[in-house]
């Protein structure tokens, strides 16, 4: 090696070191900025929260919400709300996605005890959001990938979570916004309920601390040997470690348990399926479905898939039909059967089944679109191919979960659409359920834009025809929402004022 090359290699090493340092500093700066802005936000949220008798509104959103319209909303509500004292809690967060909101949701609801939850977000979900939002989304993505990479390197991925892309985002936010540490679980098995051990075990598993998770699941099994959940969870942990024998043993123990046996059958079926022992797998799924026919949607799908793979199409169809009878409200059932008909080129039957699924949940429209496309009905294909709000399926499920948790606690849910966007898209996400109210920001913004220039209302056009608002824009949102809350919740529900509360 010549001297020049030696010097060059030395330079490369030096440069790599400095580049690493630069990356760490950059991310540390982003982290510090995030932490400090959250700290300030939390201080504002907690101020005056303890006073009794107030009506608390918890707002979830992204950067178009954080420190934007919530303070104005509080001011506006308190000015016009008469005797009622309103407290608006701002949980808007830059680059917010539903996965992060869900992670903290239960904690937030416990902590703030809100009477109403307002949600205005969704633009940053998935790749779709990233493309639309330029560098902001790009940065979030890089940030996300960076931490995902770090966690991958140190091998702290949760069991089974490799497939779930959203989890990595949770990890990032978990790191950015760690909740105060919960007390460590007691060591004695008798002092804790089995459910708590399971909960702790899942938590440790999520954090990648597999040894502790294993211990917790074992203690959970010891505390409640008649419940199959502990066996299943522990078995999946072993399976993730490629220890199939131990996993099988545990699933078998789960089958011998009293409660939740279907889960054990299902997991054992999956284990056999992965090994290629299809007949045994089928037997397990059938047994699981017998055990809990109304509980094991996955069992039907896996069983039908096994039949389909073996060319036993009629069998597969029968199972899917049975699945539809058992789970008439689940759109996946219709989607699966429709797809099977599609494969068999039975277009009429497929259309009928897809249509039933579509009527139930409009975002299951792709099947219809495909049918029309294959039949050469281009216009119809286009209609169903692009009509709906394109949230990634994971995010869609996330929003539904948020809805169910909030409504389940008896809290009112207000779904507010971004400025200048139709509320119909939002209705497709949250559905028509009692307790949900929709607020649209179209008429108010369009009216304001007649007399004001775009730049007087928006600071940028980050999302296409709208973006982050100026004070005036934020006031438009806040006034509209305040109007809607005061009229829709506290006043005459039928009257629709400036703020259109669409029920």
């Amino acid at each position, binding site marked *: *090696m*010549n*001297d*020049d*090359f030696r*010097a*060059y290699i030395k*330079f490369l090493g030096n*440069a790599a070191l*400095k580049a690493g*340092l*630069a990356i760490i*500093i*950059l991310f540390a700066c982003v982290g510090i900025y995030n932490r400090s802005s959250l700290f300030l936000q939390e201080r504002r949220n907690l101020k005056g929260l303890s006073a009794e008798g107030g009506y608390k509104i918890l707002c979830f959103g992204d950067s178009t919400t954080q420190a934007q319209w919530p303070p104005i909303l509080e001011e506006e509500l308190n000015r016009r709300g008469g005797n009622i004292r309103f407290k608006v809690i701002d949980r808007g967060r830059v680059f917010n996605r539903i996965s992060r909101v869900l992670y903290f949701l239960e904690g937030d609801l416990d902590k703030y005890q809100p009477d109403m939850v307002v949600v205005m977000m969704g633009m940053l979900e998935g790749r779709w959001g990233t493309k639309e939002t330029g*560098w902001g989304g790009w*940065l979030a993505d*890089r940030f996300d990938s960076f931490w995902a990479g770090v966690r991958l390197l140190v091998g702290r991925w949760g069991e089974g979570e490799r497939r779930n892309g959203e989890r990595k985002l949770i990890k990032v936010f978990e790191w950015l916004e760690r909740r105060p540490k919960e007390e460590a679980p007691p060591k004695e098995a008798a002092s804790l309920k089995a459910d708590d051990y399971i909960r702790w075990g899942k938590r440790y598993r999520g954090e990648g601390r597999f040894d502790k998770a294993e211990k917790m699941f074992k203690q959970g099994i010891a505390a409640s040997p008649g419940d199959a959940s502990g066996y299943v969870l522990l078995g999946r942990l072993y399976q993730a470690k490629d220890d199939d024998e131990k996993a099988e043993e545990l699933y078998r123990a789960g089958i011998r348990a009293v409660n939740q046996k279907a889960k054990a059958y299902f997991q054992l079926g999956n284990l056999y399926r992965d090994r290629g022992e299809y007949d045994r797998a089928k037997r397990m799924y059938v047994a699981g479905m017998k055990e809990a026919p109304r509980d094991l949607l996955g069992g039907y799908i896996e069983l039908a898939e096994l039949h389909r793979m073996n060319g036993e199409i009629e069998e597969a169809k029968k199972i899917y039909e049975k699945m539809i009878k058992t789970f008439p409200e689940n759109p996946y059932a219709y989607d699966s059967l429709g797809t099977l008909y599609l494969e068999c080129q039975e277009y009429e039957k497929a259309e009928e089944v897809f249509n039933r699924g579509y009527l139930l949940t409009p975002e299951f429209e792709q099947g219809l679109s495909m049918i029309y496309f294959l039949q050469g009905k281009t216009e119809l294909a286009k209609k169903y191919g692009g009509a709906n709000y394109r949230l990634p399926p994971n995010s869609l499920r996330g929003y539904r979960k948020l809805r169910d948790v909030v409504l389940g606690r008896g809290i009112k849910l207000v779904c507010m659409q971004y400025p200048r966007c139709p509320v119909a898209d939002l209705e497709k996400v949250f559905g028509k359920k009692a307790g949900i109210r929709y607020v649209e920001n179209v008429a108010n913004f369009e009216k304001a834009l007649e007399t004001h220039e*775009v*730049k007087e209302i*928006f*600071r*940028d*056009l980050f999302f296409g025809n709208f*973006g982050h608002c100026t004070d005036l824009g934020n006031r438009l949102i806040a006034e509209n929402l305040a109007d809607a809350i005061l009229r829709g919740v506290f006043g005459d529900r039928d009257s629709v004022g400036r703020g259109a509360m669409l029920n």
Partner: protein
Amino acid sequence: MLFNSTVFLLFFFITLTLHWAIRKNTYRNLLLLVASYIFYGWWDYRFLLLLFASSLVDYLCGLGLAKEGWQRPRTRKLILSVSLSVNLGLLLFFKYFNFFVESSAAFLRVLGFSPHMPALNIILPVGISFYTFQTMAYALDVYRYAIPATKEPLPYFLYVAYFPQLVAGPIERAGNLMPQFMRERHFDMDMVQKGFRCMLWGYVLKCVVADNLAVVVDGVFADLARCSGGQIVFGVYCFAFQIYGDFAGYSYIAMGASLFFGVRLTQNFRSPFFSESVRDFWKRWNISLMNWLRDYVYIFALGGRIKPVSRWAGNVLITFVASGLWHGAQWTFIVFGLVNGVFYFMKKPFRQENAAARFLNMTATFHLFCCGLVFFRAATLSDALAAYRNVFRSLGGASVLLPDHAFCGRAFFLMGLVVFVEWVQRKREDAVAIERVPAWGRFLIYLVFLTLLFVFGNFNHAPFIYFQF
């Protein structure tokens, strides 16, 4: 292969590693030559022959000019004319053929003829204006006895094809580059650090400044007739900084990349927007081309500053028209050259030696340059004239929608960034001369610029504007 593409970075890294892994200088040069031909061939391998032919002709002409028995003036002139005709012939054919055909047809139509002229579908080889000028410079320098003719083909062919400066300059002189290839090069940490700084600043100028401003500029110049005066003025300011960012960015990246190999290229820009007069401006803008035109067209061919004044003025105008024509075969470029030639005779409006006078002089010079730029960027002469009409008609009442105001705000920020950096560094050798800053400060500066690059950088691989010239 574009500088702002991943494939270039990979290519650069591999070439650099191999370059320093090789012990002997000759083999290093050979590697650089092969790499340069790969670099050029990446775009279109068929034109490698053209590059080689242009180089070969001047190499042979150089040998002929230096041959002992051929030293009679007539013989030497004949050899030089072979070099010039081949190079100018290539340029004329690839760059100006259609222009001359179309212009002649238009002229004949004015005279009442209806000619049927052939128009060829010619692809303009990337960087042809740069490397033919370099080979011509070599022959002219040998002819003028400014440098001795080289017998070693490797350094000469490398001088023509050296990849950092091959497609968009700076137009190097053999006297600067060839000796650097001939001597033993060593890995010099100071040069490499400077190279990194040059590349970083170059990428910021290109990917952050130029490519972001392009959005505003494209919006304005796509529909000049419907733009308000204010929009056109803003668009032209943005274009001034865009073209500076684009071209100076390329030059900085070229300079930086070359420094990694231990070779110094000529500085092509020296804070031109702080020029106090138009004459000063052209000594700081595209320095290598302006020096080339000064040495070989203005002085060598035309005789330079000769009496009477009218002839001198004619020489200046011809030189500037040549500079305009060099950019491309369009009337807009010719008018651009002509306008700048006229401005060249204007003196500083304020003679006082104080800050206010200097500032006013700089502002005036910048605006004069912008006046010419309207012709440079407009698609046709009538578009440019429409732009002037609109500027003087009204400054408000726009009917063309520019990108939103936040984006325009960003444009101001980016232009401000360039002005700030160049102003801070105006008394130093170049914009990246920060050797005196302590190491942690330098690290901080790199960090800021890297952040800028990642946050605002446009990595859509927009080609450099000067590739087309």
